């Protein structure tokens, strides 16, 4: 009887020990982590956002993402301004994709007021939208190249972007925040000289873009840094509801220009661009191919633009109702919900910018990456913080503790003690490692 008990006890002890050991192992791997803050100010971020990255060596195990530093309360501000004033406010939701926001807003109000805009205005909207897509994607290409330390490509693509901006300035009167849309049409007409300049720019850019596509496809260093980074498979892309080039790189065709043609896209042929890489490389290829497609659209619309008026008169007071307006921003699907109550001010304006949808997949993309790949992974969704104004949190499954400097030191002392070296006598000043 006693013997059995003893055996049992021994077995229990052994089990306990094993448990302890495995627990210790787990704890060790959990504690063997370093936390680095990226942002709110950091050279790789073009706008403020904060990423608290937990690293194991150079690998990311956890990321806490904080966005919302540029929340400006635009939606509340819209409710106390007239529709005309809102037009310019909404244009400033984002500096890069300003036209798509104002187009979505105008479209919504035109639908509420029952206005049909002239065809010429619709074509001008398309031309400006595609020019905007060109400049946004060229800007992205430069930023992405800079993130992986390829400054030469960065400079080249921004040099070419300047040409697009010149054309935009000529057509709209400004380089960004074009102010070309108005309720009921567009504010400026496009003349033959502008068309010539646009076509000339398109010809120049086509050669450059083909070169960049070839470069991305065939440069070994670029593909070493881009292929397999920030994977987001088709299933995950559907699950997290990502939009735009991120979704298209995973093989999901979600181009609003094709699904729900707006402005003059119902007359203009748009070919869908998708890729199957589902990583940063795929997103790069999709964006460059989209630019080539944009050039075709610009050429087609400049050649086929109908004559006529550019705007119809819109009432100051918009009839009550609600509308959902969608456009395809350079970064993806852009949704505006507008509700009017019959006065000259909207009752509620809600903007769902594409970046807002893309943040959700970031958790998946960052985990398991190298520290060096974080900037390009973040940049690959082309995040627009001012569009997003929001924050998301990614929790690791095990739940990490944030170690301060003392904790790390304690850990290292124990680590060395196990190997027979006692370093606890070395004096070290107290400090907080992670603030």
């Amino acid at each position, binding site marked *: 009887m006693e013997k059995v008990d003893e055996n049992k006890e021994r077995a229990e002890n052994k089990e306990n020990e094993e448990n302890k050991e495995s627990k210790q192992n787990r704890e060790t791997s959990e504690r063997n982590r370093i936390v680095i803050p990226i942002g709110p100010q950091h050279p790789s971020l073009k706008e403020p956002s904060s990423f608290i990255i937990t690293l194991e060596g150079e690998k990311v195990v956890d990321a806490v993402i904080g966005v919302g530093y540029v929340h400006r309360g635009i939606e509340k501000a819209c409710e106390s301004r007239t529709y005309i004033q809102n037009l310019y406010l909404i244009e400033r939701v984002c500096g890069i994709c300003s036209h798509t926001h104002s187009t979505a807003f105008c479209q919504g109000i035109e639908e509420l007021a029952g206005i049909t805009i002239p065809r010429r205005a619709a074509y001008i909207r398309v031309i400006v939208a595609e020019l905007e897509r060109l400049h946004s994607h060229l800007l992205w290409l430069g930023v992405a190249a800079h993130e992986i330390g390829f400054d030469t490509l960065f400079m080249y693509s921004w040099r070419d972007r300047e040409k697009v901006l010149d054309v935009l300035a000529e057509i709209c009167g400004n380089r960004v925040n074009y102010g070309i849309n108005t309720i009921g049409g567009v504010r400026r007409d496009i003349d033959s000289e502008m068309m010539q300049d646009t076509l000339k720019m398109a010809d120049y850019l086509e050669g450059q873009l083909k070169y960049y596509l070839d470069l991305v496809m065939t440069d070994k260093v670029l593909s070493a840094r881009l292929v397999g980074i920030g994977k987001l498979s088709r299933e995950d892309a559907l699950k997290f509801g990502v939009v735009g080039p991120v979704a298209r790189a995973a093989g999901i065709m979600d181009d609003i220009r094709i699904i729900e043609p707006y402005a003059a896209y119902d007359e203009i042929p748009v070919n869908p661009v998708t890729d199957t890489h589902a990583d940063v490389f795929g997103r790069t290829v999709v964006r460059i191919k989209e630019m080539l497609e944009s050039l075709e659209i610009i050429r087609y619309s400049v050649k086929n633009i109908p004559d006529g008026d550019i705007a119809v008169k819109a009432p100051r007071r918009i009839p009550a109702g609600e509308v959902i307006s969608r456009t395809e921003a350079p970064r993806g699907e852009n949704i505006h919900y507008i509700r009017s109550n019959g006065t000259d001010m909207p009752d509620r304006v*809600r903007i769902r910018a594409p970046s807002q949808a893309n943040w959700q997949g970031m958790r998946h993309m960052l985990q398991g990456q190298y520290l060096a790949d974080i900037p390009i992974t973040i940049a690959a969704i082309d995040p627009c913080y001012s569009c997003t*104004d929001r924050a*998301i949190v990614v929790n690791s499954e095990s739940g990490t503790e944030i170690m301060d400097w003392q904790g790390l030191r304690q850990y290292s002392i124990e680590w060395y003690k196990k190997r027979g070296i006692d370093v606890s006598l070395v004096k070290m000043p107290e400090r907080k490692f992670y603030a």
Partner: protein
Amino acid sequence: MQAEQEIVDRLCEEFPFLKGRVHVQRQKRIFTGHLVKEEFEQVIRYLHNNMGFYKANHVVGTDEGENLGFIYLLSNKEGIMLALKEIAPKSDPKINSMTCIYPSLERHERELVDLFGAEVQGLPEGPSYPLPDGWPKGNYPLRKEWKPEYFDKNTMTYNPPDAGNDKGKR
């Protein structure tokens, strides 16, 4: 319009309480009336499981006077967008989180908490946003009665004028 009408018909068939409360606004847009929590959950689950509305684009919070409205924008493969509305009284603004079936809604629902003061039950833990840390409790900026001019940015307090005092009114 064919596909949209079919969706509406199917919904009405499945849920008798939806009859007359769901309409096709235009091509690719379907709007429903305001549903209460129980009705809403049945419908959204059915839409997700049986009707191929795989994607939740967004949640729009609205101020409906006494109530808070929540408009869930769902879309399917053909790009048909269905605006499913839920309503909850401001006195008891409890709704259930839909992140269990649409994980992409997390941020949008979190925003309802901050800006509208909705109590979204079942939302994963996380910090408050988009409002900054130290934002006073009980201030929900997108509710109609909240006026930005009464908010003192330096002290982070909301100082509405007294009922009889007309000085603060604009």
